């Protein structure tokens, strides 16, 4: 009985050979990596981002709605974005992510056209000793990937300083809201990573904690 919890160990009988070929390949790959943290940071910066889960679906460039740029107020210095409704029910959005540290104006515009999109910004925290608890306001309860039919990004899988997307709410799941979380390093204006997902039902009102591991 004393060992019951230990006997429940799901990896107790897993045998791992550090000399197996896959382990050696991993070791070689890791040791082939540069140890310059600056270059690593830049790599990560563009890795985590705006990734509609639509493997095999060709990206459709819809970078066709650059004007008019709207300039936000209240704390925004050079915030710039364009939100355009189309007759087919879709909405095009183009954003200078580097200027959207306070997304309130953009969010207001999205709300005005009744686009089911929530834009949140957060600070990428320094690598902590242990992860912080996720605040209740960041709980999406059911974050899901979405199809390229629902959201088409101009530059999928990239955290470009300027990116755009077209949403087709008719392809959203019932109760779905596209949530875009944009992360900056403290004091920086260029986002280092972004994350998007489809929230069903409850929509978070703040970004999840993110850690810069570099």
């Amino acid at each position: 009985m004393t060992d019951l919890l230990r006997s429940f160990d799901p990896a107790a009988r897993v045998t791992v050979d550090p000399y197996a070929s896959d382990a050696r390949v991993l070791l070689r790959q890791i040791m082939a990596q540069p140890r310059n943290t600056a270059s690593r940071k830049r790599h990560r910066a563009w890795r985590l981002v705006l990734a509609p889960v639509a493997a095999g679906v060709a990206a459709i460039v819809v970078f066709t709605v650059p004007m008019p740029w709207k300039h936000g107020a209240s704390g925004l210095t050079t915030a710039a974005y364009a939100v355009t409704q189309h007759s087919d029910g879709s909405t095009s959005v183009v954003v200078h992510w580097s200027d959207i540290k306070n997304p309130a104006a953009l969010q207001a515009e999205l709300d005005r056209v009744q686009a089911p999109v929530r834009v949140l910004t957060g600070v990428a925290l320094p690598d902590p000793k242990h992860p912080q608890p996720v605040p209740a306001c960041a709980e999406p309860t059911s974050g899901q990937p979405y199809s390229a039919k629902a959201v088409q990004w101009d530059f999928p899988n990239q955290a470009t300083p300027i990116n755009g997307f077209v949403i087709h709410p008719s392809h959203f799941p019932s109760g779905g809201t596209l949530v875009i979380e944009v992360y900056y390093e403290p004091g920086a204006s260029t986002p280092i990573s972004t994350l998007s997902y489809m929230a069903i039902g409850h929509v978070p009102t703040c970004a999840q904690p993110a850690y810069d591991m570099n």
Partner: protein
Amino acid sequence: MDRDRERFEELFTTCYGAVVRYALRRVDPDTAREIVSETFLIAWRRLPEMPENVLPWLYATARRVIANELRRQHRSRAFSDDLSNLPPAEPLDPAEVIGQRLKVHAALAGLSVRDREVLRLRAWEQLSVADAAKVLGCSPAAYTVRLHRARRRLAALLGDDGLEQLVALPQGELS
């Protein structure tokens, strides 16, 4: 640099299995592979900062990588701290143990993520109090308190006083 490569290779060879198992206990096998890769990559980049006792450092790093991965994968049901993702260990005696295991499974699932981690570090990674505290970034005394509370909560969920000793601290460990 050659010395660093030598040290890292030794570290990798010594700790690879432990880190793989740590990840497999918490995420699905595909994600575990990524967690292990990222954890050792961070170790490679931070080799000069690595303490002498490297395993708690690796576990702590893997824990943070999992937290980041959890966020990246949008907390989808395919990746979570949900115990239902874990493959059950092979039963020792199907007639008796499966029932107990199901009971423990349900009780663990009813604990908070933090309580589970406190218990897992002790029961599965079999860390000392001092090393488990390093993984969680707290003092050994704080870890002991957390472990005590987690054990009580687990026992309460199990509803069986006899199970309270599941993850008991060996006497004198803190002395």
